[in-house]
């Protein structure tokens, strides 16, 4: 397991799981004993060298870590400013950063003596990563996925099924990640004795945001070592996409105390003035969703709004509590890009660097359009390339078709 960083003056979360005013535990009483037990098991695992050994060994020999840090030479030349590096989480087994966390959590599930894991998934990457590790370690796996997401991420549904997982389509609400998460939590409440909930992002009740941050911090820690070896320096800018916010926390948290500009990019959907977006930090208000206090997209009556994004992984009206804290601290700048900007950026990256990114990741890349002109030639910009785009080929094609029809 990656070392827990203690930054001077930054001790979040506190003992009750709060990041400033955000976080905490807002779940039915039935789950409290489980969360207490999970916290105990997690703390003990952090001190246990055999757990750490097993985790690191699986990251290395199964997930394929460390992942490369690629200098994006042609993209750098395209903008003629700072140097751009890509942290290649797309090269992880299963195609995204999600497996860093699922290896850790499924090992915790085994330690807790659970025989069954449940997970929610949006784009399907967390579902695939959970099903993969469950297969590897011999646990039963059930994944809840919004009906709409099952359709737009068909490939991942097939992968999960082949891995032996049961995929349950959720038709409630907008039939996307929010509804899948609610249903996964309901299933967990019902089967709490036998079941471990493998949560895919830095959201949910304490200690989940802390656990996911810890397991994803491998991204930032590796980046620091690799960049130092390549350039002898630390980055000047870090850019990552934010849905719930796990790849961005994993990249940002190890650099929290460094002099580095951090930018989180949310799904702007059809534009944040249209109301059809997933820009929770830009347009939401503090509230409670899925077990913690954080920014939430909601109407005037406190009913949670449906998010809109071409990216199933960003299509979520909540966000991790630590991101809400960092927004208020102004430590991280949160921006958004539209569906169209993301798709254009995906094509640019593909043509210039030979990497087809996931739609989620494409949002981070799109932000270079406004960031790079403001950088200097000696700046170093690192993008978390959180996932690969195989799963999104249909969405890319459909977007291109729709654009052609409009012309």
């Amino acid at each position, binding site marked *: 397991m990656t070392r827990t960083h203690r930054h001077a003056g930054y001790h979040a979360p506190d003992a009750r799981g709060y990041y400033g005013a955000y976080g905490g535990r807002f779940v039915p009483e039935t789950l409290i004993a489980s969360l207490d037990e999970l916290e105990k098991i997690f703390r003990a695992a952090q001190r246990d060298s055999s757990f750490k050994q097993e985790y690191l060994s699986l990251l290395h020999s199964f997930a394929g870590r460390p992942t490369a840090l690629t200098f994006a030479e042609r993209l750098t030349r395209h903008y003629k400013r700072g140097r751009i590096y890509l942290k290649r989480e797309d090269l992880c087994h299963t195609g995204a950063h999600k497996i860093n966390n699922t290896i850790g959590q499924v090992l915790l599930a085994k330690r807790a003596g659970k025989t069954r894991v449940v997970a929610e998934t949006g784009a399907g990457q967390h579902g695939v990563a959970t099903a993969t590790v469950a297969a590897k370690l011999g646990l039963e796996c059930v994944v809840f996925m919004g009906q709409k997401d099952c359709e737009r991420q068909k490939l991942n549904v097939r992968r999960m099924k082949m891995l032996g997982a049961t995929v349950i389509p959720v038709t409630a609400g907008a039939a996307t990640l929010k509804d899948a998460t609610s249903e996964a939590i*309901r299933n967990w409440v019902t089967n709490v004795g036998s079941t471990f909930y493998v949560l895919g992002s830095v959201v949910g009740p304490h200690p989940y945001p802390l656990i996911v941050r810890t397991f994803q911090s491998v991204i930032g820690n590796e980046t620091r070592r690799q960049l130092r070896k390549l350039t002898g320096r630390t980055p000047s800018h870090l850019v990552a996409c934010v849905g719930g916010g796990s790849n961005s926390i994993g990249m940002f948290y190890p650099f929290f105390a460094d002099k580095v500009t951090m930018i989180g990019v949310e799904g702007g959907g059809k534009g944040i003035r249209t109301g059809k977006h997933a820009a929770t930090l830009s347009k939401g208000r503090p509230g409670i969703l899925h077990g913690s206090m954080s920014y939430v997209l*909601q109407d005037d009556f406190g009913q949670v709004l449906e998010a809109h994004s071409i990216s199933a992984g960003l299509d979520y009206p909540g966000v991790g509590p630590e991101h809400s804290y960092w927004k208020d601290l102004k430590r991280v700048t949160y921006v958004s890009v539209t569906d169209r900007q993301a798709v254009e950026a995906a094509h640019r990256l593909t043509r210039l660097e030979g990497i087809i990114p996931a739609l989620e990741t494409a949002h981070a890349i799109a932000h270079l359009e406004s960031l790079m002109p403001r950088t200097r030639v000696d700046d170093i910009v690192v993008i978390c390339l959180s996932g690969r785009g195989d799963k999104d080929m249909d969405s890319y094609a459909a977007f291109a078709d729709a654009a052609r029809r409009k012309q």
Partner: protein
Amino acid sequence: MNRITARLAGLQEKKEKALALFITAGFPNLHDTPSIILEAENGGADLVEIGMPFSDPLADGPVIQHSSARALRNGVTLKHIFRQAGELRRHSEIPIILMGYMNPILSYGLERFLAHAGESGVDGLILPEVPLEETPRFASQIRRHELAQILMVTPTTPLSRQRMIDQASTGFLYCVSATGVTGKRSKHPDFGYVGRVKQRAKKNPVLVGFGIRNREDVRRFSSVSDGVIVGSACIEFLEKNGKRNFGRWVRSLKQA
């Protein structure tokens, strides 16, 4: 004395078990709630919980999820709910408990919510997402408005914690019959567990809820507690039959 406490004490004196009902506000139609509750009271209901609909009801099964979604489509808001509670209070002394999720309350403003609840004749709150650890944040404000804050114990609650929850709870102690969300369940009910909760609850009367559907459930759970709460089964009845004969159905439960 708070109406909830008074009502439960009165029932205890008569050695009678309490029947509490849960009704989603604004369901099946926006303005149905007061008349449904008066009908229920005529049928013998002792307390009523009014569900405040939320878009993402984490602790609820499909029946209450659907009723909440329908009520929201009907346009129900907290303002309607306070108006309906006030109207009900003009006709009835039945204890009124609001049950729901935090986000709409925070959005309305907690202090404003509590003040309006008090003014409309509401007697208590059940907030299933707010566990013991988070109650101190709200406790003093809730007390100031003389509202009861009813907390839940479940089969996974450790013994020592159960005592603390009983101490912190006011009005009654809500005993969740089994793990899981509201509505019917496949597991066999564990009456032994409910009996143990009742035995250990030194401060509060114990009412049992979740999955109580018919006369037999009412009879069996009441025999080991101070009464029961019927929720999803009420919603199903109203869904199927509307308000017609609701009072008669309630009476059959009360006389179980």
